[in-house]
């Protein structure tokens, strides 16, 4: 009984100590936040004047430097133009870029490496581009994602090939890499076009996907040539890319692909013809009735998008009208 009472007492004391610890911790966090707010408030006018090029930042204590770095990081995300160049110059000059690059390359904690990659992009530090490119091979996906984002923010033309490799190897989300290449813009296109002749099919497929997003009508013929690629994945991507940037002269090559031996290629060609508003309803209706599953469905929907009346008329005589019926219903709804 006595032992039980001692145990209860010990537990109560431990609970009280824990409570005191939590209260002290909360007080400390609140004090830190207040101190930070005060420093921000005090330094904000100088930071704003610095962003406008009116003054240089004064000599700062290490703590103030940390606060100012965070403030400039926020402005770096929100601004374009000369202010951004001033932010980048400040970070380069103060040694923060070098420190963050060291963290990115050597810190053992992935979240710290990822935070460093983020910050390097936010402060527009162009000298960090090689380090960020190296981080595309980091073991941590979090770090790779942050590096892709920052390379996009920096508009790093040198990063096009490594980004393409990351795209082909699924090292980061496709949409994010596509966005980064979009930020790089026109300088990315020559490298993507060159990658169409890569000996590796995954590179050809990836570059076709990105040219479909970034390219223009002048890329149509090079893309069309890939409809005859030895890889079905590449042929399907070529058809999809043509669906975005093809011209009337590409309708006939796409119709030829409607009889490709691989269903995914046939389906991609049918969808592309629908997107391009190609007046080739008859071959699409034929595929919709003759083919199966995804291909028949894609062909039926493309045909209905082009000519809903002809598609509806084909239902009566079709031995396989399900996809046609569904496509007509969808076309009438939308």
């Amino acid at each position, binding site marked *: 009984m006595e032992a039980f009472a001692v145990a209860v007492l010990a537990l109560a004391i431990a609970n009280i100590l824990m409570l005191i610890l939590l209260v002290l911790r909360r007080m400390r966090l609140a004090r830190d936040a207040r101190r930070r707010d005060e420093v921000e408030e005090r330094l904000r006018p100088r930071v*704003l004047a610095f962003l406008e090029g009116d003054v240089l930042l004064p000599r700062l204590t290490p703590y103030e430097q940390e606060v100012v770095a965070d403030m400039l990081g926020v402005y770096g995300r929100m601004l374009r133009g000369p202010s951004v160049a001033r932010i980048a110059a400040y970070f380069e000059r103060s040694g923060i870029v070098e420190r963050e690059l060291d963290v990115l390359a050597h810190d053992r904690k992935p979240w710290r490496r990822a935070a460093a990659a983020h910050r390097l992009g936010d402060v527009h530090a162009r000298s960090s581009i090689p380090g960020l490119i190296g981080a595309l091979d980091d073991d941590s996906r979090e770090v790779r994602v942050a590096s892709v984002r920052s390379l996009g923010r920096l508009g790093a033309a040198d990063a096009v090939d490594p980004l393409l490799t990351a795209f082909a190897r699924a090292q980061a989300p496709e949409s994010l890499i596509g966005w980064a290449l979009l930020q790089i813009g026109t300088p990315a296109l020559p490298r993507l076009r060159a990658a169409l002749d890569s000996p590796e099919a995954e590179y050809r497929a990836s570059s076709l996907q990105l040219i479909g997003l970034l390219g223009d009508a002048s890329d149509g013929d090079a893309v069309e040539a890939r409809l005859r690629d030895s890889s079905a994945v590449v042929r399907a991507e070529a058809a999809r890319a043509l669906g975005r940037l093809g011209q009337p002269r590409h309708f006939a090559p796409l119709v030829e692909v409607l009889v490709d031996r691989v269903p995914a290629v046939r389906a991609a060609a049918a969808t592309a013809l629908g997107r391009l508003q190609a007046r080739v309803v008859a071959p699409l209706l034929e595929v919709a009735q003759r083919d199966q599953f995804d291909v028949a469905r894609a062909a039926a929907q493309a045909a209905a998008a082009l000519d809903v009346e002809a598609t509806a008329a084909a239902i009566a005589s079709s031995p396989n009208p399900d996809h046609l019926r569904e496509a007509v219903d969808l076309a009438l709804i939308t």
Partner: protein
Amino acid sequence: MSAGTSAPCILVVDDEVDIRELVAYRLRRSGYEVLEAPNGEDALALALDRRPALIIADVMMPRLDGYELTRRLRAEPATQTIPVILLTARTQEADVSQGFDAGADDYLRKPFNPDELLQRVRAVLGRR
């Protein structure tokens, strides 16, 4: 124009103090009188009270967002002619259309160039 001053008065509305202060600093530096509000509700009250020559408002704000603020300004006879520039990180075409549908006069996407913002301010004020 606010009463008793020669410089046009501009109301800057943003819940992010960093951005609000930055825009205000740039405008003051260019000779404008500036009012600030951290949310749409305060901005509406301030607009009714002070009748600024122009309002620059963020879209995503607590309590009253930039679209709703613009609609309410347009619904009030006292504020319906005050031009509004929306400043936002929302960049989809549909978001831009929504801003103009609400009655905004111009729309600037973040990240933005403060010089461009100033040019748009001058253009919008010049049109009125």
